[in-house]
Every structure is written in structure tokens, then in C-alpha cells.
């Protein structure tokens, strides 16, 4: 569809501007010399013709010229086998095209618009946190969101199906009842089960959330809905045949609430009778007494204690009493052996913790949520409705991100009245809150409804406040933003700048790491990635956690220390703990705490040396240079190759002589086939440069018994040697990289796809950020100041739902 647009434009232009002539446009000479041989009216290669001089009215053909500009600037055009301009000529043409396009855009800005925008799951959870001081498990309450353009906050993909609405209805009920501490929550006790992944090694302290001197176990933040008694039942880890592991010796197990010890159990070491042969349990059995003990030794690990309402940290972990000297490494069992060994003499481990209750429920207690909701307490029934009005007006202003109208308050009060008539004041508030949380004013961001008919308009201050807070915090604006917006002060550039600085200092801005960076770098996949366990027996959940944490800490540091975004590639440091140090082959890093370390090898440090990034760009069982190369091209350089042509034959895994082909030999087949070669000569070299990292990001010198060759030559003849070479290559393409970064961040900031008409804004942001060394703050503030961020277009047919899939 998009391919025919230039042709349509051509027709329109010919009709409109017929007869106009002046001296040739500056790019015309370049086009006639380097482009026209393929892109003429007759051949129309790739559906593009640049023949008509009418096209030289650049502003009227911006989409076409942005495409030309991109191809020429990134060196993708003219093709390698055709006459190519020298660098100076290329740069002059690029610069003159940019100037013309930017001028045209300034004269006729097209800020675009974002259609009605549903809060995604992360935003919803953060909004509840900031509105009601309540932590919720959004994954359990709501449906997952589709990602579009690589981000799950893109409005076009955030639909509202009946199933979504059902979930919102039940979530609103659940959340409002928990927030006020509804007494009926105690009517039927609830059981919540927390489980520890099987591959989490529990022979060390597993989290900084757990006490010093502890071993294994888990820490959870649990919401106790009411004061009352709660039961904590621990189940120990079993091997695959259900034998409890580590039952050879007694071990102490602590249950703590907010760090305070509520129960210390002793479990293990009490098996009677003749044992089954070690590691053969499950195949050959022992005495009945032994068998029963090995299956039920944890039956009594349950404690019931009174707990006051609120969100509390519950930890269940062993007391660390080593059964062998520290530092002795037992060989790790792998795959099925690991699953089937009862590890009788080893450490017991926690499998699940069930928290049930409340039993004998009491009152709602004094929770943070209640303190924030009940801003007044009515004394006497006459005071109830005025108090309810005050409470609901305060909450609705935050939830709807602007002062609620009288009409909206009346709706909420209607629910309040029904609820309070049935079960009292607090129930009334709960009922109104439930209604508020399914209001479209809460669930959706619909911008500036009054002024969308046509033309370009500045966003009103409240919509701007929401854009800011959803961009930087993935959440609703706070009181300060709303107050400024209410006074009409937010659009003042000085105030706006102060607010952006304040918001970036706030820990809520870590949402940029969680939501933006992890989606941009595709490291969200880490959560579910599972490498082949036979090939990578060392892989465990501790390493998964460490990968996630390394990338998070590094990005947070880059953001908060306001580094240049080029340092994402170039940095020589990272954050690691003992587990990760071992993985990276480093010594002298002990314990679970992550600390900053500087690397001198030029390999680690920066995102291209991070285990998590390297793992999710591999296959579960081997590295994939094509995937890694594509990843670099798409996410760092902004020139993703098109999808492969149909009917691509499978690459033969073996040679004619039956010998398994090396990966490089397989890849060379790509380049032998011209249909594959056009793209693979660009993808493969970038991927091969990373071949010193295996599929779980370990450094390696050989693969398949052959020394790793991490040198490659890029399509344009640039040699790239190893990861150090790749870093140099990416930084050498600084403009492409910074443009890509900015374009991705702008997509995320706006929650819509970015297309050609946003390019002038992107160039402006980058030009201004250049003076500031492309620091995070300079790009973020450039985005906030940009036309697409501060203005919206009127609704024009054709601007809705466009994608930038083929903009390049």
C-alpha cells in the first residue's frame, strides 16, 4: 500500500504545480547521476521513481524524500555494485535535503496525533500504586498487552475487548476492596501460593531482600487484607520422583515477617529404616519408613500467627549452616540427572510458600492506602456526604489526571450513596472507587477532546502533564504536575524544564529502564528465556536474575548519571555479583550484592557485552549471527533488512561428506545465493563480530572444536574485528545510532508509531543534543520540547493507524 504513495503524490503534484519552473533543486544533480538509472518512470525499481522535476518541491513530497534521505545517509543507496558518490558529495546532498525538509516542516508542522490510549498493564499497576499506595499483581489481575512497534504502550494496539473489560471490572472491585480494607475480605480466607523456580540454586543467599546469614528461600511482598491470623505453609523442593531433596541432615528454616522471626523450624535428618541407594531413589526403593519420610518430611512446616493488615515482606529461608567447607565446588549435575537426584546429603530447598487467611479476621488496620483515601473522617451522618465528596474529588483528580467535572462527581456520589445505604460510609467509598477505576477517564488517555476537529493545536496543560508522567514514570501525574497544569504554568518552558529534571531524579523514572530500555533492547525476553540445558548445564535462575539486574543497574546508572547515550555502547564498566563474575570469568567478586566493576578487555561493559543481551539474541542451543546482526541493524543502526523472501530453502546442516558444517560455513551459503546476499552481507558480519560470546553470553575462544573467528567485513568493505570492532563500527555510525535511539525513545514517549513527518523533529532533537554530548537529559528534554510531543494535529484521513514498517 505504502509503495504507491509516491506515485499518487506525483499525480497530485503534476496537477497542482504544473508549469512552475526555476533553477534545478540542489539534489537534482545527485539524483540524475546516482539514482535515476533505476528509479525512473520506466523501471520504477522498488516502486520508486525520482524522474519528475515536479518532485523537487520537497515539502510536498516529504515522505518520498525522507526515504531517499535515509537510504543515502545510511549508505544503503546507491547499491554497492553501482557508481557511488564520494563521501563529501554524499554529505552535501544529505545536508541540503535535510535543510529543505526541515524548512518545509517548520512552515507546515505535522505533529501527528495519538488516538485514544488505554493504560497498559504496567501503567495501570503504577497508577494504582501512585493513586492508592497499593501494590497489585497486575499480571494476575489483567490481560497482557500486545506490543506494536516494539513497545506495549503504542495506542493503536491497545484495544478494549470484552475480556479486557471483564478483567477491569473484577480488578476494580478487588483493588477498591483491598484499598479500603473491606471487612467482607475476611469472609472466606484466601490462599496465595508463591513458588521458587526449580533452577534457582539455593545453596547461597539468593537475594538482597533476605537476611544476612540466610540461605535459599524466597522473599515476597504480600498484601494482608485485614488484621487477623494467617497461616504460612512451606513445601520443600522435590526431585522429579517427588523425593524431598537434602533430607540427610537437620536444617533450620526461618519464617520472617518484615524481618522479624516468627518461627524457626528444624527439618531433615530423621529418616528411619534402610535408605534407597543414593541418586537411585525413584527407581529402587528403600524401607517404607524411609520412603514415607522422604515424601512427607515437610508436612509440619506450617505456622499460624496474627498479622496486621498491610503490605509486608514475608521471607522464608534457611539458616546458613554449611554442611561442607565453603568454597568447595561440587560438580553440578545437569539435565535429567539434576532433576532425578535427591541430593540426600546436600541442602534442602524451598519449593512453595502458601499464605492463607485471614482467620478470625479483625479490622482493616491502619494501612497506607486507608491513610491516603480517608482524608477526612465524618463525625455524624450529616458529615458523611460532604466528606465523601471531598474524598472522591481528591481521588478523581488524580485518577482522571484533571479536576473531575461536577457531572462526574455526581456519578461517583451516586455509587457512594447506594453503597453506603447498604453497608455504611466506607462501603460507599469502596463502591464509588470501584466505579472510578473502570471510568474511561481513568483507563484511557484521550487527548484534548475539544480541539481535535482540524488544524494543529497545542496540548492543554493537563494532557501535557499526562504525556510527561506516562513518558518518564509510566504512571499518572503527581499533585505537583497537576497543580502546575491547573495554573496553566506547565507549558512555560522554564517550568517544564524544571519538572523534567525533577521527574528524572524521582525513582519512578526507573520505569524508563523497565519499560523503554528493556523493550528497545528486547531484554524483556529474559524473563522467559530457557537455554538448552544439556549444552548449558551452568545456566540457572540465579544467572537469569543476574542478567536482568545487570542490564537494569547499568541503564539506571547511565540514565541517572546522565551519560551520553553513546556510552551505552562505549562504557567500560558494568554491575555484577559473584554469580555473574563467575560467568564472566572474573575473580574476587563475592556475594549477592551487585557492584560496579571496570573492565579493561574492551569486550564487557556496554550493552554489547552484557550476557542478557547476548543470550536473547541467540537460539536456545547456539549463537545466531544472523539474529545478532539483525538486532544491531534494527535496534542500534536503524536499518533493518526486509523479511526474507518466500521459499527460502533450509540451510543444509551437513556437508556432502556427512561432516557437520560449522556455523560460518552454513552462513557462507547465504552469501553464495544472490537473493540472500543483499541483506546477509550486512547482517552476518555484525553478528560474527560477537561470536566470542556463546549462546548464554560466556566468553569463548573456540566453538565446535574450531577456534572462533570473530573478524568480518561489512558490506561496504569496512573490516570489523570482534566485539571491540563492532563497538567501533557502531560508534563510527554515530548519526545512525543516535537517530535510531531518539526515534525509538520518541515512539515510546508518544505511544504511537513514528513516521516520516516526525523526522524533522528528530533531527532537531539530535542537533540540539549534540551540543550536550547526546546526554540522556538532552535527548529527553528535546523530545519533551518537540512539536510532536507538545502539539497534536487535527484528525486527517490517512494519518491514523499508519505504521513505519517500511519507512526505510
Amino acid at each position, binding site marked *: 500500500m505504502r509503495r504507491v504513495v509516491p506515485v499518487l503524490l506525483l499525480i497530485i503534484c503534476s496537477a497542482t504545480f504544473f508549469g512552475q519552473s526555476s533553477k534545478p533543486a540542489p539534489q537534482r544533480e545527485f539524483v540524475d547521476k546516482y539514482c535515476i538509472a533505476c528509479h525512473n518512470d520506466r523501471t520504477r525499481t522498488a516502486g520508486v521513481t525520482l524522474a519528475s522535476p515536479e518532485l523537487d518541491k520537497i515539502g510536498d513530497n516529504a515522505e518520498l524524500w525522507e526515504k531517499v534521505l535515509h537510504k543515502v545517509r545510511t549508505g544503503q543507496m546507491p547499491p554497492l555494485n553501482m557508481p557511488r558518490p564520494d563521501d563529501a558529495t554524499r554529505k552535501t546532498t544529505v545536508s541540503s535535503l535535510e535543510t529543505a525538509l526541515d524548512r518545509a516542516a517548520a512552515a507546515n508542522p505535522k505533529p501527528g496525533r495519538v488516538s485514544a490510549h488505554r493504560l497498559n498493564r504496567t501503567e495501570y499497576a503504577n497508577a494504582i500504586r501512585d493513586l492508592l499506595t497499593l501494590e497489585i499483581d497486575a499480571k494476575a489481575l489483567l490481560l497482557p498487552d500486545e506490543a506494536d512497534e516494539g513497545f506495549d504502550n503504542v495506542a493503536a494496539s491497545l484495544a478494549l475487548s470484552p475480556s479486557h473489560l*471483564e478483567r477491569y471490572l473484577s480488578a476494580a472491585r478487588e483493588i477498591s476492596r483491598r484499598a479500603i480494607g473491606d471487612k467482607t475480605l475476611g469472609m*472466606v480466607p484466601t*490462599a496465595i501460593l508463591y513458588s521458587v523456580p526449580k533452577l534457582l540454586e539455593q545453596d547461597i543467599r539468593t537475594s538482597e531482600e533476605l537476611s544476612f546469614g540466610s540461605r535459599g528461600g524466597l522473599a515476597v511482598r504480600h498484601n494482608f487484607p485485614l488484621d487477623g491470623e494467617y497461616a504460612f505453609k512451606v513445601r520443600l523442593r522435590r526431585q*522429579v*520422583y*517427588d523425593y524431598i531433596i537434602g533430607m540427610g541432615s537437620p536444617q533450620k528454616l526461618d519464617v520472617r515477617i518484615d524481618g522479624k522471626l516468627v518461627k524457626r523450624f528444624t527439618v531433615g535428618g530423621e529418616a528411619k529404616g534402610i535408605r534407597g541407594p543414593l541418586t537411585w531413589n525413584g527407581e529402587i*526403593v528403600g524401607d517404607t519408613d524411609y520412603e*514415607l519420610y522422604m515424601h512427607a518430611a515437610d508436612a509440619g512446616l506450617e505456622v499460624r500467627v496474627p498479622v496486621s493488615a498491610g503490605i509486608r515482606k514475608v521471607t522464608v529461608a534457611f539458616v546458613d549452616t554449611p554442611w561442607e567447607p565453603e568454597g568447595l565446588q561440587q560438580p553440578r549435575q545437569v539435565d*535429567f540427572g539434576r532433576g532425578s537426584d535427591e541430593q540426600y546429603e546436600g541442602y534442602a530447598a524451598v519449593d512453595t510458600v502458601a499464605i492463607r487467611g485471614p482467620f478470625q479476621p479483625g479490622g482493616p488496620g491502619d494501612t497506607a492506602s486507608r491513610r491516603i483515601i480517608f482524608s477526612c473522617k465524618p463525625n455524624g451522618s450529616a458529615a458523611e456526604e460532604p466528606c465523601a465528596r471531598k474524598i472522591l474529588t481528591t481521588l478523581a483528580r488524580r485518577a482522571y489526571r484533571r479536576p473531575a467535572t461536577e457531572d462526574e462527581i455526581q456519578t461517583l456520589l451516586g455509587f457512594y450513596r447506594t453503597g453506603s445505604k447498604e453497608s455504611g460510609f466506607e462501603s460507599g467509598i469502596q463502591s464509588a472507587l470501584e466505579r472510578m477505576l473502570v471510568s474511561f477517564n481513568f483507563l484511557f488517555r484521550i487527548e484534548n477532546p475539544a480541539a481535535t476537529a482540524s488544524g494543529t493545536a497545542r496540548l492543554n496543560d493537563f494532557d501535557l502533564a499526562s504525556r510527561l508522567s506516562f513518558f518518564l514514570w509510566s504512571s499518572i501525574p503527581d499533585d505537583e504536575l497537576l497543580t502546575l497544569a491547573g495554573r496553566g504554568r506547565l507549558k512555560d518552558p522554564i517550568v517544564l524544564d524544571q519538572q523534567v529534571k525533577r521527574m528524572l531524579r524521582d525513582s519512578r523514572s526507573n520505569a524508563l529502564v523497565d519499560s523503554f530500555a528493556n523493550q528497545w533492547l528486547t531484554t524483556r525476553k529474559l524473563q522467559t528465556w530457557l537455554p*538448552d540445558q544439556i549444552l548449558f548445564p551452568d545456566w540457572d535462575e540465579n544467572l537469569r536474575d543476574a542478567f536482568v539486574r545487570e542490564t537494569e543497574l547499568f541503564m539506571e546508572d547511565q540514565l541517572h548519571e546522565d551519560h551520553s547515550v553513546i556510552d551505552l555502547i562505549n562504557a567500560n564498566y558494568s554491575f555484577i555479583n559473584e554469580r555473574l563474575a563467575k560467568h564472566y570469568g572474573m575473580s574476587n567478586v563475592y556475594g549477592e550484592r551487585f557492584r560496579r566493576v571496570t573492565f579493561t578487555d574492551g569486550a564487557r561493559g556496554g550493552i554489547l557485552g552484557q550476557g542478557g543481551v547476548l543470550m536473547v539474541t541467540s537460539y536456545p542451543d547456539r549463537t545466531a549471527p544472523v539474529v545478532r546482526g539483525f538486532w544491531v541493524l534494527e535496534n542500534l543502526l536503524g536499518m533493518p533488512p526486509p523479511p526474507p523472501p518466500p521459499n527460502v530453502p533450509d540451510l543444509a546442516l551437513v556437508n556432502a561428506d556427512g561432516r557437520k558444517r560449522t556455523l560460518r560455513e552454513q552462513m557462507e551459503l547465504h552469501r553464495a545465493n544472490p537473493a540472500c546476499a543483499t541483506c546477509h552481507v550486512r547482517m552476518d558480519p555484525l553478528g560474527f563480530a560477537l561470536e566470542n560470546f556463546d549462546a548464554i553470553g560466556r566468553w569463548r575462544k573456540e566453538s565446535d572444536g574450531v577456534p572462533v573467528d570473530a573478524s568480518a567485513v561489512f558490506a561496504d568493505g569496512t573490516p570489523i574485528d570482534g566485539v571491540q570492532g563492532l563497538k567501533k563500527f557502531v560508534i563510527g555510525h554515530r548519526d545512525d545510532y543516535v537517530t535510531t535511539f531518539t526515534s525509538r525513545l520518541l515512539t515510546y514517549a508518544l505511544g504511537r508509531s513514528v513516521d516520516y513527518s516526525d523526522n524533522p523533529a528528530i533531527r532537531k532533537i539530535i542537533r540540539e543534543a549534540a551540543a550536550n554530548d547526546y546526554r540522556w537529559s538532552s535527548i529527553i528534554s528535546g523530545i519533551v520540547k518537540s512539536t510532536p510531543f507538545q502539539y497534536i494535529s487535527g484528525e486527517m484521513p490517512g494519518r491514523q493507524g499508519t505504521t513505519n514498517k517500511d519507512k526505510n
Partner: protein
Amino acid sequence: MIITKKAISRRTVLKGLGATLALPFLDAMMPASTAIARSAAKAPTRFGAIYVPNGVIPGKWFPTAEGTDFEYSPSLQPLLPFRDRILILSGLDSVPPPPPGERQYNNHADASTRFLTDTTPSHILRAGVSVDQVLAKKWGAETSLPSLELALESVDSGTSCDFGRSCVYTGTISWGGPTAPLPMEQSPSAAFERLFGENTDPAARRARMQQKGSILDSLLQEVGKLQQKVGPADRTKITGYLESVRDVEQRIQKAVEHNAEVPLVNRPAGIPETFEEQAKLMFDIQLLAYQGDVTRVVTYMIGREFSGRTYPEIGVPDAHHPISHHQRDPVRMEKLSKINHYHVSLFSWFVDKMKNTPDGDGSLLDHSAIIYGAGMSEGNGHVPLNLPILLVGGGSGELKGGRHIKAAPGTPLANFHMSLMSKLGVPVESHGNSTGLFNID
């Protein structure tokens, strides 16, 4: 419809809470609901699949004679009272080829994975869509939940439960698609919550529906006003939202119509102590789901493959899996057949309840098709041939019980899957390793 003849007061139910879980929890309340006939004109068909792990003792499982005139085998004795509703199948094989470049193991991971997909699991997490999910896609729009997956034992995705293959394979029989294994709910409390919330009390449920209804009414007004204010593109989008609101209203209306047909039960507060109580509680939840028409598709794993559960209550204190590798030791074989018999007896307890639960013009059993079986015949050798499969229920008149049908040698399990789906009104062109239909008429 309102339950007027209460067999048990709500207060009694609530009092029993917390201390112990009264089980089997439906029994005491059954009379009130059985007295009421369903008002629905035509009852929908329900599907279920019950899975037992580690294979069986084929010699004690299969009847020797075919057709209608045969003697019930020892393992199946508990089902004798329902003979006319049961189709015993033998001779079905499940040996789909492994994915290209992978080995054929025929192990535990294969058994559970193939049971409803007849696809061999891959080294990477990949298999095929399962029968229940094909049906759920078709029937799911009619009910508030498309399907429910239940299990008594935990599933852990993190490790290997069978030579290089993920524990997901041994812990589920439901696959939404080749790469979408569905987790099975192990907590009766959570399963109940998904179906009914805190309890099935019609008054409380009605109150909730009313609250939801008034929220939706009020949302309709809100959205109506919003539509006036926005531009054309957003208006189109918001019209879509309106449809969602109306759709949910209609679903609630449907739920209200079904409301009184479920007996009064509270959400269970945890997992009961004994295996038998756990197993029956999950069966009860399955029954409630059908009865309230909250979902029509339920899968239930009584044990995951490799289960090492001990059964001291029936005189088998040994773990299930080692016993299943009996190496022809008669003592062990006897113990394994005791476990098989015990599982079947629990199932027959459920079948009895299905039979005694009125549904439309008959019973729930009349309107159901329940598969019961294992993914191996002989556990000792992980044999994937001649699988023990039962098909129970009338299938709304489509299924004829009272028979033992032997499949021709080499008949793929998937051919049975295809025929069953076709009987249930959801024919598919192929499924797993299918080569055609397997006649079960």
C-alpha cells in the same frame, strides 16, 4: 431461578470455614439443587479430559472380548455401574515422528504431551494444539471462561523432567498452540476464584451482578457523552468500546440466568490434607464449572508424569513412579494395579455425580464427553502403543457407550481425537499425527 428448598443454611456453610474444609463439599447440598430441573431449552455439550500418569498394567486394564458382550476388567471394576455410558478403547497408538533432527524417546514427556495433541515434543519448547483447546476456541465465546486446566501436582517450567526436555511437558496436557503450553491450576482456591469468586451464593452473586450491571449502565452513559466530544477517528474507536460494554452486559445477563443452578459453596481456603480429598475437590470444581456453565472445557491431571506420590491409604506406601517400573515383579505389578484401580474409583465417584446432576432434559453425564486415560500403556517400558483410553458420557446423544472397540493395528491416537471432535460438532481437517477418522459409532 432461586433455590427455595435449602438443604443447608448459608450460616452452616460459613461456620465450617477455616477450621477444616468439609469434603466432599457438594454432597450435603446436592438435594436442593437436584430438585430443580434446568430451564435451559437445550443443554450444551461439555468436554473433559482426565489424565493419570506413569501408565497402567494392560493385562488388568483391557477387557479381553470386544463389542458389547464382554467382562469388565479388574482395573475398570469401579466403573461397572456406568457401563452403558462408557466406551472402552484399545489399540490406539501414539508414536508421532519427532521434529526434524531430533531423537524419538517415547518417554514420560511424550506421554503427557501426546495425550491430547498426538505430537512429539521438541527439544525446544514446541508441540501441537490439544483437543480441549480446539474445542475451547469454538465454544469459549459462549461462556465466561473458555477452558479450565486443573492439576494436583506442581508444574515447574524451570528444569528438565525428561532428557533435555522441559518440565512443562510432563506437567500439562493442554496446548493452546504449538508454542503455547497452558499452565494447569494447582490451587483449588484459585480455580474456584476464577469460576465464581468467593462463593456461589446466589444472593451474593446476584448482588455482584447487579453492581456490575449498574457500573456498566453508568459506563454506557459516560461513553455516550465522551463520543459527543471527540473527533471521528476516536469516535470509531470508542464505538468499539461501547460494543465491548454491551457484550459484557449480555454475558452478565447470561450468567444471571444460570445463576441459581449451582449449589451454595464457598471458595475453598487451601489444599486439603489427603490425596483423596484433593482429587475429589478438583472433581467438584470441574462439576461446578459445568453445572454453572462457566466453562465447557476442563482438563485435569490427577498426577503429572513421573509422579512419585505415595499411596499408604490403599496399602501402597511406595512412590508411584518406581513402582511403575515394576520389571515384571508380581508384587510391584499388584501395587501399580492398586493405584490404577484407586484412580479409576475416584473417577467413578465423579461420573456418579455427573450422572446425578440434572442438566436440561437429562443429566450432566448425558451432555458430556469425558476422556479418561494415560499416555502410556505399560509404564514399565514407557510403551506408547495400545493406550488405555476411556470415553465417558452421552455426548448429547452423539456417543454410544457399553462397548469395547479395538482399533486396527497402527491406528494413531489422533484419529480418535479427530472423530471425537467431529462428533462434538467441531470437525478439523487434521490433528497431530492423524491419518483419518477412527470409527467410534
